């Protein structure tokens, strides 16, 4: 119990935000919580949010780790496209499902390796390093599909997008499983601390004997792997690889999810669970906009305003204002960040 408390306190702002947004939608749309079973699959708006949020949630897992090392991965959208295209290509070429999946996942790992190599070995700044793959990656994906949407009808592969296991949609299961696995690996081993250490002070970590180079590469590879999973899901969902549009601009959503999840873009302390909730918040906003029936030209403004409100409420300044008003000088263990007022 005592171990859970700081954890709960850490994700509380995200949980509250999610609750408020879900509350808003269900107020607007009273049928929100009705969940039924259609075609042997759970069916309802909350399920949609989970299901549609899964790719961004997956991306957010890798992105959280990358951002914790003070990096950023702009290429995840393009990597999704590459891996989706690889999967579609593999299955249409007649490879077995296992081989196809292996190829798609390896494609993600290779992309991650490339990014990691640029960042850790060549010392190129992460934004630029991953920008290269962001630009070129979509070209690679199109090269595989030759510009067309490569469709397939293999039930096994389609299962990853629109299948379900015990009535739960597969993407949700994959997302939850990946999140749980990543959390477990990162927190049960020393990886989490080492990643945070290199994010906060790379040089000091190297001097302390942390194998920063390998760790950085591994983190980018994880991001590539997550993007590969997301890419497979996205392709399986529409039964085709759309090299142009798969994952387009999703990197921004993933970064947003991480930031809403409270991980600083300057690296350091991170929380995977909070990022996952962040991904759900974003998807809830998107779904809410779709349900609202507003004309689409307002979509961006609504999204921007909601995001701004969320971020303003979560900003350190606001938090200290809240602490100030709640008259809790001990700050409940929270570290007051001294603002140096010039």
């Amino acid at each position, binding site marked *: 119990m005592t171990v859970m408390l700081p954890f709960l306190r850490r994700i509380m702002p995200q949980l509250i935000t999610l609750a408020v947004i879900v509350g808003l939608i269900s107020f607007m749309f009273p049928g929100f919580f009705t969940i039924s079973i259609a075609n042997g699959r759970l069916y309802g708006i909350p399920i949609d949010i989970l299901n549609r949020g899964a790719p961004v949630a997956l991306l957010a897992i890798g992105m959280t780790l990358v951002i914790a090392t003070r990096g950023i991965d702009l290429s995840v959208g393009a990597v999704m496209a590459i891996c989706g295209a690889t999967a579609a290509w593999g299955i249409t070429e007649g490879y077995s499902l296992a081989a196809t999946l292996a190829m798609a996942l390896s494609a993600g790992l290779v992309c991650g390796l490339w990014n990691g190599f640029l960042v850790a070995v060549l010392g190129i700044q992460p934004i630029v390093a991953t920008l290269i793959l962001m630009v070129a990656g979509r070209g690679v994906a199109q090269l595989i599909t030759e510009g067309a949407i490569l469709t397939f009808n293999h039930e096994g592969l389609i299962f990853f997008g629109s299948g379900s296991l015990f009535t739960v949609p597969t993407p949700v299961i994959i997302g939850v499983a990946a999140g749980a696995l990543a959390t477990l690996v990162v927190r049960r081993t020393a990886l989490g*601390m080492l990643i945070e250490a290199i994010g906060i002070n790379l040089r000091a970590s190297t001097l302390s004997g942390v194998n920063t180079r390998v760790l950085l590469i591994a983190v980018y590879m994880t991001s590539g792997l997550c993007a590969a999973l997301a890419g497979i899901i996205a392709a399986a969902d529409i039964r085709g690889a759309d090299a142009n549009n798969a994952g387009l601009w999703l990197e921004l959503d993933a970064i947003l999810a991480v930031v809403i999840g409270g991980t600083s873009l300057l690296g350091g302390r991170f929380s995977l669970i909070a990022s996952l909730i962040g991904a759900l918040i974003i998807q809830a906003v998107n779904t809410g906009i779709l349900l609202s029936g507003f004309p689409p030209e307002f979509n961006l403004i609504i999204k921007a305003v909601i995001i701004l409100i969320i971020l303003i409420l979560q900003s350190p300044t606001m938090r200290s204002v809240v602490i100030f008003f709640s008259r809790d*000088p001990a700050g409940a263990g929270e570290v007051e960040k001294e603002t*140096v007022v010039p």
Partner: protein
Amino acid sequence: MPQSDASQPLLRARGVRKIFPGTIALDGVDFSLEAGEVHALLGENGAGKSTLIKCLTGAYRRDGGDILLEGEIINPKGTIDAQAYGIGTVYQEVNLLPNLTIAENLSLGHQPTRFGMISVRDMNRRAREVLANYDLSVDVTRNLGSCSVAVQQVIAIARAVTLSGKVLILDEPTASLDSHEVGMLFDVIRSLKQRGLGIVFISHFLDQIFEISDRLTVLRNGRLVGTETTSDIDRLRLVNLMLGRELEEEIRPHGKDHTATGEPRFSFTGFGRKGSIAPFDLAIHSGEVVGVAGLLGSGRTETAEVLFGVSHHDSGVASRGEGTDLHLKSPRDAIAAGFGFCPEDRKTDGVIADLTVRENIALALQARIGWMRRIPDREQRAMANDYIRKLDIRTPDAEKPVGLLSGGNQQKVMLARWLATNPSFLILDEPTRGIDVGAHAEIIRLIEDLCAQGMSLLVISSELDELVAYSHRVIVVRDRHHVAELVGNEITTDNMVSAIAAPEKETVI
């Protein structure tokens, strides 16, 4: 109500309070500074000295109390305000911008302009003039980041001096200076004093306190212990005031008699790196402390960095014991060989500010064990608490982010990190920098204990007394060459000074 009149002290703090979560850093502290005096501020690591001056200059928001300048209540909202009031400050960690040139750093905020444009020529000329007072001949168009910590420190001081119309505050300005620079600084301080400035001076070097200060104020655990006239107090009583107890032993100013013999544990032959340190030979025996002496910028840090693989050596070989060659291309190689290295610049090379004390202490050990086998929380906590006790690290608990600790305590955490790995050869670069008298004695005792347990140490220090106290051998570095080696009874301050100063290599080799 206080009136503005001549009898008022120049700068006065009344009942200043500052509370951090879990710590009361300042608890109603009074402090007053007269014009034309040097007022020393003393106290153990974490006593609240830095916090007090940050409150005085508005860098921190106070939680209570008043600040009066010449009798008027002032409320500086930040450094700019403080500068406008004529208060110049050098904060504890060097606070300059490594990406700007020396001249730009000196003139930031008040650059000479002509028709609204900065006149670079004027700016550089002024910078050269200012630095001439400090006997520093550097290219002022060089990036500050390429200068050693010491040079940066001097520049920070020079900047603060040019900014201070009434008050100059120096937080541990001498921590990384050698005696020559310190002398220079004191000359400057004296001339400012003549001009009627009030100077606040923080240092852990009692000699310097006695040399320069007129009055002193002692803080302990955020509380005011007292203000005294320096000439009325003796060393022992001062230490007593600071620590609240007797200091058991002071440093013995003589070298070790014992000279290590037999097989060296590690030996380095022709080790060097072009452009940073000339090839040198070095043998390290078990249970031996090798001191390294030299002026600032002489290449002491470079020696350590080449040994630890931070910068790759491009000549020479290293070996363990008799034969086996050591491959030292990176810190990881060095750590695998049983080395440890506590770097000089703790802010950029040492602490991981946002990680907790516990994690910082466990880091090097964890890195060596590998990421798979996480040291269980319980063990980490036990280890951390153990070192917090042993090294007397002042922190409410092991879960405090290390960046929030006072400077000296951060230094101890770094030491703890390396002790936890139990290295056979530990390199310490300026380990006592910024450490209070009590802890200073403890660290020296620790060094002696470690070497008694058979650990080999290479200690770089600017404090020659300290080197004399614990070294079995002292290597003197000058101009990137190892120029002399003093053994046993030869290790005296005088010998070292003459070896450091000697223009030719005629000293004992």
